[in-house]
């Protein structure tokens, strides 16, 4: 991914949406400098500012004081993100002991409190369980408890419900909503599912091929999708409230990260593309009301006529 910029405000639920290979996960990992270098490298001039400090310039000990403490993260696959040989209580308590220097007994009490907060029944017993003794939904709750134990200001949730069943997904999303409100925490919700951001984010960043292609308040994005990729993606989602119809498909596929097309990276798949799109990449253009799109149609709206 390159040249990705966005702001996250205190207490805000922000969604990042994109398909596989769009760079949304790399973006989230970069915030906490979790991208291995090499092969990854952050270009000079990049800035990840957290409460006035540039995380990219922070020395390792100070970064560690932020990571997991003020900015916490949960991952897609709760089974591989939990350590199978430690009890869930130990794993939740670890961050509190490291970051907040509380005693073991106090950390254990905090772990139980956290398990209760994330809605795990019988937290006094569950605290001594191992990950394999829990269901997928329970494991994701434990992951959330681990992330929240230090009362972070920012929670990065990378596809937190993708591996879960629909009814369990609904539980976890409701839990994240509740925690975000109760704890006043900013949530960066990364997902491929437009349905998930529609219900759980106030603002949305759409990514395609390593670029931010559109940002908007959630309602504006769904009512007036401006980038043809956003519009195409929305039309491709099977709707439960629509009668049986042919789905709109975006032709072709996401280009490989080693072979981004020149100009606008979406132009080979775009129904409106003209010469300019292949020659020159548009910047993120302002549409007003906090809505931006990386598309020349913003300056030449009369071109919004499909060529095929």
């Amino acid at each position, binding site marked *: 991914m390159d040249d990705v910029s966005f702001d996250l405000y205190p207490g805000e639920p922000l969604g990042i949406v994109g*398909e*596989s290979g769009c760079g949304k996960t790399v973006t989230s990992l970069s915030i906490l400098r979790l991208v291995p270098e090499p092969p990854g490298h952050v270009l000079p001039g990049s800035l990840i500012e957290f409460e006035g400090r540039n995380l990219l310039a922070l020395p390792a000990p100070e970064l560690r004081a932020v990571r997991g403490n003020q900015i916490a993260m949960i991952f897609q696959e709760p089974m591989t993100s939990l350590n199978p040989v430690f009890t869930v209580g130990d794993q939740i308590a670890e961050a509190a002991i490291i970051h907040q220097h509380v005693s073991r007994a106090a950390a254990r009490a905090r772990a139980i409190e956290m398990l209760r907060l994330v809605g795990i029944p019988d937290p006094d017993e569950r605290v001594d369980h191992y990950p394999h003794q829990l*269901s*997928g*939904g*329970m494991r994701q709750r434990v992951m959330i408890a681990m992330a929240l134990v230090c009362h972070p200001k920012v929670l990065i949730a990378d596809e937190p419900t993708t591996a879960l*069943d*629909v*009814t*369990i*997904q*609904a*539980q976890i*999303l*409701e839990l994240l909503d509740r925690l975000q409100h109760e704890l006043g925490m900013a949530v960066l919700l990364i997902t*491929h*599912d*437009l*349905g*998930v951001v*529609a*219900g759980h984010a106030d603002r949305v960043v759409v990514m395609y091929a390593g670029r931010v292609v559109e940002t908007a308040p*959630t*309602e504006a994005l*769904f009512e007036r999708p401006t980038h043809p990729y956003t519009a*195409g*993606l*929305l039309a*491709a*989602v*099977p*709707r*439960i*409230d*629509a*009668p*049986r*119809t*042919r*789905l*709109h*498909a*975006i*032709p072709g*596929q*996401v280009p490989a990260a080693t072979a981004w097309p020149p100009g606008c990276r979406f132009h080979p798949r775009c129904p409106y593309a003209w010469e300019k799109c292949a020659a020159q990449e548009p910047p993120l253009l302002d549409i007003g009301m906090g809505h931006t799109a990386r598309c020349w149609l913003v300056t030449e709206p009369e071109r919004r006529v499909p060529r095929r």
Partner: protein
Amino acid sequence: MTLVEVRDLVKHYAGERSWFGLGRAQAPVRAVDGVSFEIPPGRTLGLVGESGSGKTTVGRTILRLQEPTSGKVLFDGNDVFGLDAARLRALRRRMQIVFQDPYSSLNPRMTVEDTLREPLEIHRLKGAVAALLDEVGLDAAFAKRYPHELSGGQRQRVGIARALSVEPQFVVCDEPVSALDVSVQAQVLNLLADLQAKRRLTYLFIAHDLAVVRHIADDVAVMYLGKIVERAPAAEIYAQPRHPYTRALLSAVPEPNPRATSRRIVLAGDIPSPAHPPSGCPFHPRCPHPKKSERCGTEAPPLRPITPGHLAACHFAEEPM
């Protein structure tokens, strides 16, 4: 008239034994527990459920990729479970499967052409690989490629071409789009619909996603813990779901509409293990129905018609929720 008829299908897996196989056997896993349905030719039945519901086991057992515990499957009048090996092989040509994971279901050492030619040779059929590729929307140049050179969507197209190569009448589509990105998922769903219209195919479309099923199925059956809890024509089940589980499942689908004023039913608890299904109605511990009573914990509700053609297994299917 039906092409596929499934009667009281049961598939239990023997419980694991502790102590390196010497201990007492655990309770058997009742993966499929008395499932019945029929699919008329040229139609699609959507079989929906969450993990552990038994939907994949149903698909595989119908094709006898797994042996059933009991029950009967009639394919165009043939008793699938009563056939000897030779006749089963002949029948296999007429019923095929497309798997969920296009990464593990193609042999990494075989080119696309080899993959597509193999079933033709086994069944001693003549068929052109180029024509097959064209039919699934792939360029003829793909014939010489290996799976690792293809994207997920392209692999799934190869998986579909392989199933179609022997000109089947019936295809089990086992979560064929759930591993794909949204824009590619739409391409593959449209392709499956086009092929069905062109070849008069009959589908059993297995999925966990009710929104996907809406776009392909004529009829929908919802499974929970090895049983069908509701079955109805698609339009009917989406407009008027009768089983509380179906209602919860429908309300849990995240809608791409920030103004959706849905009354979301968030179910409490986890899906129980099929080795230890609850007594009575398998859904009763999680059921949000206001009329839920003691009866639900003791008496399993049969799958019964609520309106003509609409079946539900709930004591209170007629009551509003």
